[in-house]
């Protein structure tokens, strides 16, 4: 290096020019709680158990999702539909308990593929953080879709 280069000043001025130009560039920040980043179309987030067009749960508790799950995150207990519950469940058998352990789930989407009734989709948001392991076992209260509003 010659004397001019050993002064470092020309290189420093060049660098300062570059950083100064960045001051006026568009900011990349997304203001998270107010604005959310757009996900891609095939994004796999939290699971949701779907209802059909009449608001009945589609799941028939066949257990294929639990079988296909490589992380063994899904457990369910099946029950038979009683008289008078036709408006709640579409099939004659339904899942009385349906739990997904979100700490085990790897969001591979195989349950989605295995389901013959199109009852489970990974179309939700990011699974939120929590303090206790037991709070990560999501039951039907968190997974089943909101019932459709009667118009």
């Amino acid at each position: 290096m010659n004397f001019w280069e050993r002064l470092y000043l020309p290189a420093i001025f060049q660098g300062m020019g570059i950083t100064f130009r960045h001051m006026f560039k568009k900011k990349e920040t997304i203001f998270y709680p107010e604005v959310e980043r757009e996900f891609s179309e095939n994004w796999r987030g939290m699971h949701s158990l779907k209802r059909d067009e009449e608001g009945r749960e589609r799941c028939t508790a066949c257990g294929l999702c639990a079988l296909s799950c490589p992380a063994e995150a899904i457990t369910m207990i099946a029950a038979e539909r009683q008289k008078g519950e036709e408006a709640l469940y579409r099939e004659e058998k339904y899942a009385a308990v349906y739990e997904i352990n979100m700490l085990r789930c790897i969001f591979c989407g195989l349950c989605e593929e295995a389901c013959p009734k199109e009852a489970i989709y990974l179309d939700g948001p990011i699974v939120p953080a929590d303090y206790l392991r037991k709070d990560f076992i999501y039951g039907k209260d968190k997974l089943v879709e909101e019932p459709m509003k009667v118009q």
Partner: protein
Amino acid sequence: MELAFIIEKFALILVIFLISLTVAAYSTLAERKIAGFLQDRVGPNRAGPGGMFQPLADGLKMFFKEEIIPTDSNKALFILGPSLALFTSFLGSAVIPWGQDIEIAGRQVSLQITDINVGMLYIFGVVSLGVYGIMIGGWASNNKFSLMGAVRAASQSISYEIPMGLSIIALLMATNTLSMKEIAEQQHGINWNFFYQPLGFIIFLICSFAETNRTPFDLPECETELVGGYHTEYSGFKMGAYMFAEYLNMFLASAVMSTLYFGAYNYPGMDWVNELTGPVIGPLIGMAVLMLKIFAFIFLFMWVRWTVPRFRYDQLMNLGWKILIPLAIANIVITGIVITIIDKL
């Protein structure tokens, strides 16, 4: 000594103390904001409108943190370190002329706390005293990393004080005075020392970066090699005191550079403005101009920090001894020759 004199000096000291504290506190916010802007981010914006109360939140956090004093450390010196660093960084502002004299009720009130005739040497002494806070703190921690940080701070400070002093000698030759007030008065209008001592200013600027331990010369707190450097063992408010001292030093260094080289409170057309606004508002406008210059320098400090990476230790020493000192000596020689030629003409 009359009562009015004591009151006016006390008020001035209080005001300048508060200004330095506020500027130092908001420098921490400005640093993070500027870092954000230079990196295409927005910086802290949650505490208050646009993040205005971030320094308050940071200060409160520092107060409520647990303070740990290592059992093997020298307790008295461990506490003395940050106290000394904070104390010395306040001292320098005493000789800065913040503005022209104000006339209140027929009294000439000076906007300088004290006009000692060796003001420049006083600044130089106070600045070199600042390294003792770091050295004592680093040594008292009884930690290898802290000690190495302290050793680096000491050697860096010694190395860069020489070119700094030499550049001041050239300025002294050009101005014929060491009093800060006279230097400020000589630069009336746009007659700034920077135009007579450009090389001296650049050397002084680089040395100021080194003396305040700012990037690219922040080797004493080089976290990649020394964990946290001299403040590895510090926590809570003592850590905060060190950080605050750094920002105060930056404020002081900016004030000194503005005063010595960029015309202190002088600006083109100041006579006209003074006549127009009277003997109170005029000097206050001058003070505002000085503050603007100081803020510009603080911005420069931060701009450089977020552009230039840290120097390696040997690069630092080479730059100090092999480049800056010869340049500073050459600057003295050139200044001497030019002054002689002008005198003979």
